């Protein structure tokens, strides 16, 4: 009998993870033969409640696997995450938002009163209620237990297939614990281009002033590239397009702050924290959950 699957997305998300599932291409139809989807708002019309005028609780059908994308931003997300957890045997946190907070968790840099200035606040007892925003954006495992983490923005298609197949076969799914540098085609010379020219202190460039050299490591050229502190698995997609990594796969261990490791990688080349442009956000674009990003007043 095919395994039953729930595909739910919480509101701090963009649906890219769901499109990435479709990007399996024709392989998608083969995957669909192995599973029965019982709830997936983006693809089918199963609702939270049996009757349009019934109860306040979110009801998710029982399923073997629950695939959740998105981070937690509203009270309704909290309820949905808990409901899916209760109904599903195994929970896959699909994508960087569910695993670590993702880009929407950059909102954790903003004090709540600033973030919510001008945001509609329905009056008590309104006939058209809106779910309240939570105090900050949280990753899924800050609220419920997660069995499988699948980071990436979006997760690489081959990893999604591997994770789902492992879960369906009852096998463990582990991600590699090395960095994007191991997959990156660019070459490290163990010194910066500035050192090549005899300069003692390198300069950190913004990725717009000049195009980078094609073959050389981007950090060695003076660009902030998170690849050195980011888990591999993506195939170094961004550096292949000559743009620096921003860390979407997250740190080698979910929940950690990649900042320390990245600072270590930079210090090898004599770069210091003060050299980093936008140092409040740069280390944690995708990892603002788990209290890695906090408002600075």
């Amino acid at each position, binding site marked *: 009998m095919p395994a039953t699957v729930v595909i739910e*997305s919480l*509101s*701090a*998300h*963009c*649906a*890219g*993870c*769901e*499109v*990435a599932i*479709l*990007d399996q*291409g*024709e392989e*998608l*139809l083969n995957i*669909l033969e192995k599973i029965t989807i019982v709830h997936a*708002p*983006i*693809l*089918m*019309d199963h*609702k*939270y*409640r049996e009757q*349009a*005028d019934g109860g306040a609780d979110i009801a998710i059908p029982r399923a073997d696997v629950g695939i959740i994308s998105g981070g937690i*931003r509203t009270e309704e997300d909290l309820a949905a995450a808990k409901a899916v957890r209760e109904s599903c045997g195994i929970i896959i946190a699909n994508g960087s938002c569910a695993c670590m907070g*993702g*880009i*929407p968790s*950059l*909102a954790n*840099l*903003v004090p709540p009163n*600033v*973030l919510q*200035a*001008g*945001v509609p606040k329905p*009056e008590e007892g*309104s*006939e*058209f209620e*809106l779910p309240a925003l939570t105090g900050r954006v949280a990753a899924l495992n800050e609220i419920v237990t997660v069995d499988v983490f699948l980071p990436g923005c*979006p997760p690489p298609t081959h990893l999604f297939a591997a994770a789902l197949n492992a879960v369906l076969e009852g096998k463990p799914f582990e991600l590699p614990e090395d960095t994007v540098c191991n997959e990156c085609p660019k070459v490290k010379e163990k010194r910066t281009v500035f050192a090549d020219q005899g300069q003692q202190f390198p300069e950190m460039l*913004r*990725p*717009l*002033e000049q*195009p980078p050299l094609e073959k050389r490591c981007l950090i060695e050229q003076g660009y902030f590239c998170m690849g050195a502190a980011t888990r591999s698995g993506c195939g170094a*997609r*961004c550096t292949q*397009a*000559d*743009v620096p990594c*921003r860390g979407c796969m997250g740190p080698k261990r979910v929940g950690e702050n990649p900042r320390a490791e990245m600072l270590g990688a930079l210090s090898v080349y004599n770069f210091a924290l003060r050299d980093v442009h*936008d140092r409040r*956000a740069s280390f944690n674009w995708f990892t603002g959950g788990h209290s890695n990003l906090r408002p600075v007043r």
Partner: protein
Amino acid sequence: MGKRLVIDPVTRVEGHARVTVLLEDSGKVRDARVQVIELRGFEKFCVGRPVEEMPRIVTRICGICPWAHHMASAKAADALFDVQIPEAARKIREAAYSAHLVHSHLLHFFFLAAPDLLSEPGADYQVRNIMGLAAKNPDLVRKAVRTRHIAQEMTRIIAANAIHPDAVVPGGFSRALTEEQRQQLLPMARECVEFTRFALDYAKKSVFKPRWVELKEEIPLTTGFLGMVDRDGGLNFYDGMLRLQSSGGGEYAEFEPKDYRDFIDEEAMEWSYVKFPYARSEGRLSLDPENPVGVYRTNALARLNVCEHIPTPFAQQELLEFRETVGRRPQNTFLHHWARLIEAVYNAEHALELLSDPTITDTNVREKVTPRAGRGVGVVEAPRGTLIHDYEADDKGFITAVNLIVGTTHNSAAINIDVLRAARQLLEGGRSDEEALNRIEAVIRSYDPCFSCATHNLGGGLPLRMNICDSRGEVIRTIHN
């Protein structure tokens, strides 16, 4: 107090929304609203970021149309830093963007909308979806799945990342297109042209034309339209002038996208996290279904209504047939589906045209950019409508203000009015069955809305006012920013 019906969540759309319908004791529909129930705050947390990082951050507004945000953002950054991009970069951007639009339009038609259009009437939700369609029409669905994927793969070949691209940079494109890649892409583009034409033919015969016979007698919601045209008045998604057509008539205002604030005002409602833009010339916004004021629509139907012609041959032929059948400026919401597939043909043809030009592989694809203070507005036609990114930056080129108006946002008012109209008609006589409720949702789906795209913080730069209404919809308090 009467009953309340809640459709939660609205399904087969992007993002989080619910429909709340209020009924009187007699069962008559008193009010109905589409509430967008998510909010991420991009306009706030982008403040302080370097401008050049914006095209990589805002892609995460939407995973279905990341290229639209990527492109609008890079164009805003080009304008802010006052840089002219090389011709080859423009061609690569447009080729990738056209392929992206093929993906998005096919995704919407087959995965999200077709279950309403091609399933048996009253079909159960368990088969009223792409899986159910695949069981019924395996060949058609397999081809649709394949072609959408090919279009997506084209963007991956060009930019390394299909979902959440980062290769469009201020000043151009991060890497040149190789001749080898061009040769790989050409047959893919041809396959897209072939399938989109086939899909349009199929849908015309089996859905659009037969359905039009029933629909043309209905009195549709009548609104203005907003869309982009090139210098000759032709359909264009990447660059051009904006046309804002007044409701009903054929007159329109044509303006440079950067001047949008002179033509569009915005309002907030306390019952939704989405903004409500309206035509400034009409002075105010009213969602009254009998007498809407200030309401305009954007998206596929709007684009075909404001343009004079389509610059590619097959799509132009289709446009003529469309106009012959439904008129020059049709209003019926259902026609979005037909218009969207014509646009899919155009974009496939346009991608093929751009890739057939060997100069697209010119290696000069990126200008040097120097950060500076300023304001930059970048506008494209996103799959879901006119997309405006408006940035201000300090002298180091760090963001100080962001305003975004997204395709679905422009449509907030129209979607709400259309849903109320549909609810009144479909729930007549106390109906609240699944089929009737799904038909209300089908109205929303015609707009191909993206609710995650649509929600942002308010007060991103435009003057805004929020109306607090009582239970009868009367305004009891107004708040200004």
